[in-house]
């Protein structure tokens, strides 16, 4: 299948919002998507990511804001006129139509000539390697095959935009990995602009060019996988990005971008990610892999160490996931490359650049919104 020609320069979401009754499911989503990009909307369930997708698809009307493609409003168009393709969470295949008829459905709706439909359906089937299942009904297919049909049905239209709503969440772990590669491959070969919704950070990191992290309907951070992985903007994003140790500590001193933080039997140097003043209670985020277990006698290279007792050791293939407790009773998660004995005492150290200091509140977005809202009760 040839790369899509049916495309645009930019897709803009301006202050897109959606509320259900009094509840704001999505607030002021601003995003500009360039043609060919793969964007992942990421967040826990109920964060508004599916709402955002359904608003884009036109399945939900916007409560406020607008959606523009090359400056032209599309949010006033009904779903069927937007020329978007969509892959649904439960596949939503037409149960009464065979695989090929499912794939042909959208082409028929566009009243294309028969010969072209036949050709494009054949291309679509080849693309997802389902030629042999063409005559089968969706009920006779496995979950992975159904998912492929759903993808083929969407991309065979060569739509301006492909929307994917947690397409892999119903598959088992192995199939999920396979399909992830498949989706990436399709995106690379067809270059279709894609917006992908998921709650799985690993999936989002591996697939997307850019990620949008949402929480309670509000954007927390937009950035490339590297940016999000290394520099989360607040502790919530950090938590979502695998910073499993999130500890409330007190700032003792601040020197440039570094601060000394302490509490719960911990006293370390850390990088200030959000402004912090001496005496503040802050939230410090550290990945388990960044907490290094010092071998007996190993020098901490000038860094402070944390003394802790080993609680639980889990073997995870190459490494051990270990839960330890500091002398003040704070639980921490660390990765170790040798088996530690439960009950033994260890010394931990962390690179100050890999310990990030955040404010405890997530309210920055809320503040601006309260001023905007102003009038309503």
């Amino acid at each position, binding site marked *: 299948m040839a790369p899509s020609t049916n495309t645009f320069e930019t897709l803009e979401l301006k*202050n*897109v*919002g959606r*509320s*259900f*009754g*009094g*509840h*704001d499911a999505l607030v002021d989503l601003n995003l500009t998507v360039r043609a060919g990009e793969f964007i992942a909307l990421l967040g826990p369930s109920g964060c508004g990511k599916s709402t955002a997708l359904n608003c884009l698809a036109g399945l939900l*009307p*916007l*409560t*406020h*804001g*607008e959606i523009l493609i090359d400056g032209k*409003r599309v*949010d*006033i168009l009904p779903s069927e006129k937007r020329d978007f393709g969509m892959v649904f969470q439960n596949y939503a295949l037409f149960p009464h139509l065979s695989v090929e008829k499912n794939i042909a459905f959208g082409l028929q709706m566009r009243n294309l000539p028969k010969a072209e439909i036949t050709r494009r359906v054949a291309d679509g089937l080849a693309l997802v390697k389902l030629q042999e299942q063409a005559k089968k009904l969706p009920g006779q297919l496995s979950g992975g095959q159904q998912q492929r049909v759903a993808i083929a049905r969407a991309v065979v239209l060569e739509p301006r935009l492909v929307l994917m709503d947690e397409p892999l969440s119903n598959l088992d772990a192995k199939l999920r990995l396979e399909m992830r590669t498949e989706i990436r491959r399709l995106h690379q070969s067809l270059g279709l602009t894609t917006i992908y919704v998921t709650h799985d950070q690993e999936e989002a990191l591996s697939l997307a060019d850019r990620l949008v992290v949402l929480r309670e309907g509000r954007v927390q951070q937009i950035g490339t996988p590297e940016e999000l992985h290394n520099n989360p903007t607040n502790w919530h994003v950090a938590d979502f990005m695998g910073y499993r140790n999130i500890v409330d500590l007190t700032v003792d001193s601040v020197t440039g971008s570094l601060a000394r933080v302490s509490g719960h039997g911990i006293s370390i140097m850390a990088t200030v990610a959000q402004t912090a003043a001496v005496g503040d209670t802050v939230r410090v985020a550290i990945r388990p892999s960044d907490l290094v277990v010092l071998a007996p006698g190993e020098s901490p290279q000038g860094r402070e160490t944390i003394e802790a007792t080993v609680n639980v050791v889990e073997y995870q293939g190459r490494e051990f996931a270990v839960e330890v407790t500091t002398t003040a009773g704070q639980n921490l998660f660390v990765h170790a490359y040798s088996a530690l004995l439960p009950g033994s005492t260890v010394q931990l150290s962390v690179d100050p650049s890999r310990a990030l200091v955040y404010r405890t509140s997530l309210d920055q977005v809320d503040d601006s919104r309260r001023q*905007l*809202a102003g*009038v*309503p009760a």
Partner: protein
Amino acid sequence: MTSATNTASRAHGSASLKHRLAERGIDTKLLLLVPAIVFALLLFVYPFAYGIGLTFQPLAATQDQWGGGFLSNYVAFFRDAFIFDSVWLTLKLALPAALFNVLVSIPIAFKLRNKFRGKRLLQTLLVLPITLGTVLTAQGLLIFAGRQGWLNRFLMENGIIDQPLALVNNYIGVMLSLIISGFPFAYLLISSYLSGIDPSLEAAAKTLGANWKQRFRRVTLPLLAPGLATTFILTFVLAFSVFPSARLVGDASGDTRVLALMAYRAFSEQLDYSMASTIAIMMGVVELIVIAFVFLGRSFLYKGSTGGKG
């Protein structure tokens, strides 16, 4: 979802009034509901209201006999023992019939829920009474269970009884007819409710050490209770409006003088439409009172969520 007020003052994008109404569920789709509602208003609500109005316009004869002005029909309904007793006669038929059909269906549905040979045949045969209809059932009962019918003949020739049993043209006849039409219905409903209960729940109870009785009482019965209540109500409604069999295999001026029969007589024999409407509407009231009691009892028995159906 539609309860709270809309935060309307922010700048609206495509959220026109139409969209905001759509959010509350008001959109063009609702037009599809219009024919059905118009139909219900014209053929159900209007005649019903008309009938209620009619009950307050008693015939002069009723007023002369019972007094009470525009309430005369109701005075007659409660004072005229011939009419009022039929409330009890109807309940005496419908309640035991519904109760019997439900109670007997439970063990049968339980025993037959496992797969066995001939299950499909048995279930098909159980649907058979639907094709008979009340009138044919009545005719068959008259012949089969009549004084010279096969049933009495068999019992007498085997020396089980000396005199033929009086099984028709009385209370028993109507009861038999209610069981024949009501039992298959109750059985099919209960077995479908029973199959809706996840068997792994009982399996879980078993692993927790519950014996057969405990499993039934503590797990299955509470889950089945809403279904049982619904089944009871539906079979009761069927039995309560019994009409042809009360006339054909019952004792229409005595033991089986049910409300439906009384209403029909006032309607077509005495041509007293206002009295007929009064009896008809009181019949509905009595039925709804019983249904209300069942619902009340159900909420006493079982307070948890029904897990879907109910």
